[in-house]
């Protein structure tokens, strides 16, 4: 039998043939390679969250190799002398072990924590982008809901995560979590006893949080992230309005190679920034806090920033307790309102927002073009109201530190937060609506009269007028014919319409001959240039 010679040049072709024979991959693969993505810097905010999540998975797996999720009491016998001989839980001891006795362990721990903060921060900014540009509108409401759920899951992933080291600070956080469970009417004590396995703190909670933190929550997060991306892929990304762009098309660049390469490069850059922060900026130095002891707490006990709004709301809540005089008497503690009702409302209201807005505007169309924030002042107002509420609550979560550093009375800080929480959001609503309307008006003004040139002309009668450069054609009297607003940026400066030659490239010497200055369409239309006349 003659052995067939292996032809290396034919190998890729044969391989591709084999794949297509089995999976019919050619057509869908071509569709993937050709898929067009619109590009804008604000579309990359969600990517930061995705990339941080990948860093979280990588660094998290490393940490699990050394972490011992046990609350067994042990005497510390490690390198860190200040705690030598101290009784502590095995979880805390192994966290110290990772920090001091695992090569590069502290680096990985800090990388995990910084990536978590970046994950939550980029989710918040990404959600703000989606909200203020109306990207949540039909047909993308479900993806908005998934996004809110991702924030909620990130919140719990973060809380369970920073509780694991079982240091003084995280134990205090657990104690507050237990108190929050206790505030639930009727089932409070039952819930807390079930979660903690009896009386606080018990000996089970770290093990339970561990499995939630490394399996349950990341598993759901992964599934939801996959759904989130899958829906973006299926529905195709939104785009800003602009030349050539319609509600029925996508204007951008094909996914391969340029777009995919830019994503890959951006991932490396995000990863690099996280690594820099992990190395240079200390975070959560658990060895300074000591093991958790119910009798000890230090001042400036703050949760991570994305939980601070809740801590702030709890601090600001007045001490209004509801007593129900039936039988032995029952009570609803004041913490129930900010921590349970407040948190619930803060997550359900945003989820319902897309439908609420569509109902109010009686809008059932599908929107693939984004809306500039100024074009929907009410939405901006509501969004700014929510952001202001979040900001005041978050700052109030650190009001003791602010009071300490700026020498302000602590009680004054609390009162400022209480009043601010009620007064500032409506104020933010009013101001941002006014700003939006002003911007809208200015756009229309430029479209109607043209761009201010800065050239002042004196008329024969002594009157001074500023000359405006019309953006479009003019009528017989030289007055601009008003242009219609297209939902996109209107040039407001002469430089934007080609009054300034393009910058010359090169650091020490010009690299290339500067290109011809682009000519605005209005000027290009009339080849003969004439004296600039007043637009009025």
């Amino acid at each position, binding site marked *: 039998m003659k052995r067939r010679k292996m032809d290396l040049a034919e190998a890729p072709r044969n391989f591709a043939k084999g794949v297509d024979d089995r999976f019919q991959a050619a057509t869908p693969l071509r569709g993937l390679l050709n898929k067009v993505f619109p590009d804008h810097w604000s579309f990359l905010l969600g990517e930061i969250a995705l990339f941080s999540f990948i860093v979280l998975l990588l660094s998290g797996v490393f940490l699990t190799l050394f972490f011992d999720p046990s609350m067994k009491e042990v005497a510390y016998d490690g390198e860190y002398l200040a705690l030598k001989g101290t009784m502590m839980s095995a979880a805390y001891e192994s966290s110290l072990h990772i920090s001091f006795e695992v090569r590069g362990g502290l680096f990985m721990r800090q990388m995990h924590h910084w990536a978590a903060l970046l994950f939550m921060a980029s989710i918040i900014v990404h959600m703000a982008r989606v909200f203020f540009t109306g990207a949540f509108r039909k047909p993308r409401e479900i993806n908005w809901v998934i996004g809110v759920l991702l924030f909620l899951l990130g919140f719990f992933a973060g809380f369970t995560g920073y509780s694991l080291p079982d240091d003084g600070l995280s134990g205090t956080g657990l104690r507050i979590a237990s108190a929050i469970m206790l505030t639930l009417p009727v089932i409070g004590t039952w819930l807390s006893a079930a979660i903690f396995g009896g009386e606080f703190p018990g000996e089970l909670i770290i093990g339970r949080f561990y499995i939630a933190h490394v399996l349950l929550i990341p598993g759901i997060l992964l599934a939801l992230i996959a759904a989130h991306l899958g829906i973006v892929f299926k529905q195709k990304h939104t785009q800003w309005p602009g030349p050539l762009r319609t509600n029925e098309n*996508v204007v951008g660049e094909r996914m391969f190679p340029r777009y995919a390469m830019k994503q890959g490069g951006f991932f490396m850059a995000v990863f690099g920034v996280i690594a820099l922060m992990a190395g240079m900026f200390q975070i959560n130095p658990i060895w300074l806090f000591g093991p958790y002891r119910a009798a000890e707490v230090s001042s400036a006990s703050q949760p991570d920033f994305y939980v601070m709004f809740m801590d702030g709301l709890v601090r600001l809540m007045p001490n209004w307790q509801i007593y129900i005089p039936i039988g032995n008497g029952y009570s609803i503690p004041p913490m129930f309102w900010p921590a349970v009702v407040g948190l619930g409302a803060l997550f359900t209201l945003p989820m319902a927002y897309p439908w609420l807005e569509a109902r109010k505007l009686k809008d059932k169309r599908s929107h693939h073009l984004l809306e500039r924030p100024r074009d929907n002042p009410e939405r901006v107002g509501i969004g700014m109201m929510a952001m202001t509420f979040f900001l005041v609550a978050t700052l109030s979560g650190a009001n003791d530190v602010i009071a300490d550093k700026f020498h302000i009375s602590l009680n004054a800080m609390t009162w400022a937060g209480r009043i601010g929480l009620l007064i500032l959001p409506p104020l933010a609503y009013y101001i941002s609506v006014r700003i939006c309307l002003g911007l809208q008006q200015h756009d229309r003004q430029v479209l109607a009269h043209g761009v201010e040139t800065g050239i002042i002309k004196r008329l024969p009668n002594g009157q001074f007028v500023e000359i405006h450069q019309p953006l479009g054609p003019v009528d017989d009297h030289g007055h601009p014919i008003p242009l219609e607003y297209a939902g996109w940026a209107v040039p407001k400066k002469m430089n934007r319409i080609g009054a300034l030659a393009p910058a010359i490239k090169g650091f020490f010497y010009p690299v290339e001959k500067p290109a011809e200055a682009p000519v605005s369409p209005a000027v290009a239309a009339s080849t003969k240039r004439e004296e600039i006349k007043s637009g009025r």
Partner: protein
Amino acid sequence: MTAVHHGETGTPVDVNDPHLTRFDIVKEGLRRDDIEIVTYESHFHGQNSKAEKRVVRNIAILFLLSGLFTLAFLVFYIVWPWEFELGHTLSDYYTPILGVTLGLGLLALGFAILAWAKKLLPHELSIQQRHGDPSSDEERLITGQTMMYVADELGVQRRPLLKGAIALGAAPLGLAVAAPLVGGMIEDPHKDPEPMMYRTGFNPVKNGGNPVRLTREDGSPIRPDDVSAGGQMTVYPGIPHGATNHYADSPTLLIHLRADDAATTRAAADADPRNKGSMYGNYVAYSKICTHAGCPASLYEQQTNRLLCPCHQSQFLITDNAQPVFGPATRRLPMLPLTVDEEGFFVAASDYKDTVGPDFWERP
């Protein structure tokens, strides 16, 4: 502008035509995917221009820098003294060096790829039709009818007995799935004769019916002389594990008041039915566990006689039965009835008479 494109537009080409360039075939694929390339141009004038070479050189430098920093990361990871030592040592710089070398390595790699994509690859503007229209009414009808037919085939509507049987059969199974989770985790908080929410380590039950001593963290008992006037001390129940988290509700603040403050405090305590007679001399003991969220209310302001909880800033006035005077707490800190045993050490005359710790629904 608003024309809706359905399916392929433009004229198809024969992809087997040997005269076609590779880009022609790519464009045929784009046509089939309803994509139109509007602009597709290089950043440079002509091939191998000076500017292009410069960009290529810069990208190559970035790749090399990335390799260099990553290599430096590996070298430092291996050779730099990393084991923690007390005082200022080289090991202090281990983590920062790892971060800087790896961070710069990744950033250089990222920027190299980004520069390649943004500067070297041709700039393009493509338009793809979205095809975001819903399915046609006909398709919807067919799918809907198919689903209804599935129900018909099962015949649940026609066979009500099965409907009931499914409900009765599936519900127990659903409950059976939930049962181990709920049943395994549930703990009756009221199961003890004295439920856990209402007792602390100072309950005489914990000490064979005898009063429990107040002890320091190391378990040593305390005489009145051990606390100077105006001073305070955190005390724990003098029972096994009394100072550990097994008795997380028990930490207590023992305060030796100055004479004038003590008089005010006693007047207030004696006016209260539950706190009456709980002080011992000028000594008073309050639970350290905040009635708001359970943090230790441990910041003692000697001048104003206030206890501040650092978690949510509730403030309690020591001279007035530790009533809350500011912040979110509603209830006062419980007072521990103090006395001294025959050996002269502090003991708790009884357990706390108020419930210690954060509030809950069924607290009387």
